[in-house]
């Protein structure tokens, strides 16, 4: 007799709402006239995300928090809901950046007609008619839905489904840049091929783990592993699954897509994706490693430690030699993955432990990266965004406010006190040191010094260097982008000066439940 699993709609409605809005977006795309689509899509996306964000707050504050629903496929607990809220917050900013049409003569940053080959008459016609793809909004909403599921997945299968739901739209969005389309398409293909491989590897690892434990549920896997001890089957499974997740987060040696995709993707997509994907992937990774593989900590911690060390060192060192601002931020994202992995090495505690540290770091990083890429999209020359670093010289003199705001984000990423990044860095280092991982912390401190160099050099370039001949200019954006940048900057400073409320919220949210 087949029994249908009980679903706790009270805790899942924000996710379902986002996925519903995504479907509605597809319907709008099919039936609404072209002229009305843009407004309808933007409204749907913003309203849906805002409502879902309110929903996560209600769920997070409500009594039904901490339920395991759908036969354990979804576990709505404190850290999961927190990361869902974070994804939604970043995505709201993302929609605002997607909808920006004042930077490039009244059209968005997305290709007019993706099917038109670059350099053909078809492309020219499309851009003359001012066409644009409003499908990006439903695509984004699907990805957001996938990310939200990823944050609360309680079994392996759901983990995989959510991973795919969030990944596929990202591959598409990466390839939709209006300018430098070949670069964008190349990035999309690279991202897709490598992503597909890593998904395959993840699935293989998943199968091995199932073969070991005889269950898909993370909690049951954890129990079986604790009882039976480690077996080669389990360890191989852990390793392969880790590869899949480390790929998504851009950890060395699975990072090679990161700078290319960050550079090639339309900047609004980079801004949103770099923040949101990392949040979702780390939320899932924390849950997987603590709940399912917690008993094997002695085995995966050294391995993750090595990955963290490599990621920090390589990310920071390569960022130093970049000459393009998006690539530099791409490698800096790799370095931040390393710092986050350092936090993963800690242990779950009732007080301020590893989970809290990583989630706070993600909050800090999310705002900083969203804001900094938004600023990158404003700094333009005659042929679109001014990527080359030397064209940013002297920006602090011509546009002191923009440069100063960018400096705030850079300083936060560098981890200077009175910015959110500092508390984040303090947290992940403290978590790792508390677990006795001092060699990794030493490397992390060393990498931070390298990282500071390229952030500070950027500030030096903006404020202390004279503008070059083809210096970039700042284009005045619409209110939406301005608000995103301003709010990100305010959040970055506020979380650095009074992090208390968010820290308490994280401590109250507790750990992951099995």
């Amino acid at each position, binding site marked *: 007799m087949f029994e249908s699993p009980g679903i706790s709609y009270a805790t899942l409605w924000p996710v379902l709402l986002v996925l519903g809005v995504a479907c509605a977006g597809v319907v709008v795309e099919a039936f609404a006239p072209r002229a009305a689509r843009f407004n309808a899509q933007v409204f749907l996306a913003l309203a849906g995300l805002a409502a879902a964000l309110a929903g996560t707050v209600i769920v997070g504050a409500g009594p039904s928090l901490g339920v395991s629903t759908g036969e354990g496929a979804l576990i709505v607990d404190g850290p999961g809901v927190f990361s869902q809220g974070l994804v939604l917050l970043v995505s709201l900013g993302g929609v605002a950046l997607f909808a920006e049409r004042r930077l490039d003569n009244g059209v968005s940053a997305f290709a007019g007609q993706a099917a038109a080959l670059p350099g053909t008459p078809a492309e020219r016609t499309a851009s003359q008619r001012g066409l644009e793809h409003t499908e990006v909004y439903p695509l984004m909403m699907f990805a957001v839905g996938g990310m939200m599921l990823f944050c609360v997945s309680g079994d392996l299968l759901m983990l995989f489904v959510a991973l795919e739901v969030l990944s596929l739209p990202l591959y598409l969005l990466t390839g939709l840049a209006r300018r430098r389309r070949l670069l964008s398409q190349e990035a999309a293909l690279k991202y897709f091929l490598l992503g597909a491989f890593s998904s395959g590897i993840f699935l293989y690892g998943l199968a091995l783990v199932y073969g070991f434990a005889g269950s898909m549920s993370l909690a049951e896997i954890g129990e079986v592993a604790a009882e039976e001890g480690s077996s080669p089957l389990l360890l191989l499974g852990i390793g392969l699954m880790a590869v899949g997740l480390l790929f998504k987060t851009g950890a060395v040696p699975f990072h090679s897509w990161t700078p290319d995709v960050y550079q090639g993707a339309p900047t609004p997509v980079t801004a949103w994706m770099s923040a949101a994907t990392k949040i979702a992937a780390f939320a899932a990774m924390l849950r997987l490693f603590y709940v399912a593989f917690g008993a094997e900590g002695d085995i995966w911690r050294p391995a993750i430690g090595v990955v963290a060390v490599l990621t920090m060192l390589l990310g920071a060192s390569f960022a130093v030699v970049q000459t393009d601002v998006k690539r530099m931020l791409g490698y800096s994202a790799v370095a931040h993955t390393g710092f986050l992995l350092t936090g993963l090495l800690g242990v779950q505690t009732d007080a301020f432990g590893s989970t809290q540290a990583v989630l706070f770091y993600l909050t800090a990083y999310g705002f900083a990266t969203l804001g900094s890429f938004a600023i990158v999209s404003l700094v333009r020359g005659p042929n679109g965004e001014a990527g080359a670093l030397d064209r940013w010289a002297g920006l602090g003199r011509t546009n002191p406010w923009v440069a100063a705001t960018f400096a705030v984000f850079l300083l936060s990423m560098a981890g*200077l006190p009175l910015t959110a990044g500092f508390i984040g860095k303090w947290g992940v280092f*403290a978590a790792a040191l508390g677990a006795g991982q001092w060699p990794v912390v030493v490397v992390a*401190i060393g990498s931070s*010094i390298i990282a500071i160099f390229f952030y*500070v050099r950027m500030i*030096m370039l903006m404020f202390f*260097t004279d503008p070059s001949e083809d210096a970039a200019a700042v284009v005045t954006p619409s209110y939406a982008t301005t608000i995103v940048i301003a709010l990100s900057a305010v959040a970055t400073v506020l979380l650095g000066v009074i992090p208390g409320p968010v820290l308490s919220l994280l401590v109250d949210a507790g750990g992951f439940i099995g």
Partner: protein
Amino acid sequence: MLTTLVLIPFVGALVTAVMPARPKLWAFGFAIATLIAGIVTMFTAPDTDRAWMEPLGVHWALEMDGFGKLMVLLTVVLVPLVMLAAVKDHDKRWYAWALALEAFALLTFLAADLFVFYIAFEATLIPAYFMIGQHGGPGRAKAALKFLMFQLGGGLVLLGALIGFYVVSVEAGPPSYLISDLAQLDIGTTAERWIFVAMFIAFAVKAPLFPVHTWLADTTEHATPPTSVLLVCILDKIGTFAMIRLCLGLVPEASAWATPVVVVLALISIVYGAVLAIGQDDLLRLIGLTSLSHFGLITLGIFAATREGLVGSILYMVNHGVATAAMFLIAGFLITRKGTASISSMRGMEKATPVLAGTFLIAGLATAGLPGLSQFVSEILVLISAFDYNWLVGVIAVTAIVLAAIYVLWAYQRIFTGPAQLSRQPVRDLDRREIGVLTPLLVALLFFGFVPGPLISAASPVVDPIVNVIQAGE
């Protein structure tokens, strides 16, 4: 009340930055207000202690003991003087940053919580970075970057120590970053030593000491003299301040363990800094390097860890602040007249600018430790402690006095004596504003040279508990 003392310059920085009319006057007004607040709080202010980041055990805790009072006094007095000296060739950005720097520097001297101290310690760097990078010679951007990289590098190493304290604190119970709580912690020997090493590296970069001093001369060469005053006379003091407060105060056993190495580094700094100073042609580099020598002596006095040594070092920090501030400012006045900082392109200045020459000589001789000027007292105390520690150390340290006489007098001889240079425009002597800036500093040098009592009585109560702990350990 102590919070107000920090807030006044901080608010002043924001006001100065946005004020369209007469921003420098506003900035000066805020600096004077800070001076008044600083003096008032010295007599009346109760300690502050309230929770700030509870999950991390961070308190917004401020207190002002005798040591803190001296450093606060030095800071609040120097800032308005420097602002007065800087008025001609610095714009409002510099004034805003100067006030921000003052706010964070005061916070480091007042912090009774290690986390607060760390935040302020790092936060001082941003104003300093912009002050170096936005005003000064053509090499300023590189100098600013070098300065910031050294300081932030040291700061991150200190972050390791900060986190180390947290980890130990959590193991013992609910975490607390209050310095008084951290002093009670039972830290294992190995952990304590690591924490000491991390802290010492950070403070040695700050102070600075050999071999992490290389940013100092580049910075003073390319920054403007008023910036250098704030950096060397206030900011660098945080390094030696923290050596006493945090190294000796929190990890006394590890400090005693490391003393031989620290003493050697201090001795190298003393001799090497002075020898380098003698050979400099750039006047600002010269003054920067003399400070390396002086910081060596201060560190020596601290780690010799006798009563005389510690009192001497605390006095030294104040006196060095005053004397070196005077040196930098006088050099700045000289350089604006000559258009160059190169000693070899100046001579015979005492005929054209007798007042300037006189002030230079007084400040220079104070730096060289002439009896009757304030630095002499502190130097003698430090040297006594050095001889107590080991006679050989004392002998090497004493060379500082000889070398100092050489670098001061030889510089004076090259710049001011000899036949006057012919120039189309007559070189003016110090004007009223410049004399007004220097007078308080020179009076302080003379006054504390003859009446060091108030300084000693302010420093002694701070020193006694530290010395008691160390002697109990032995």
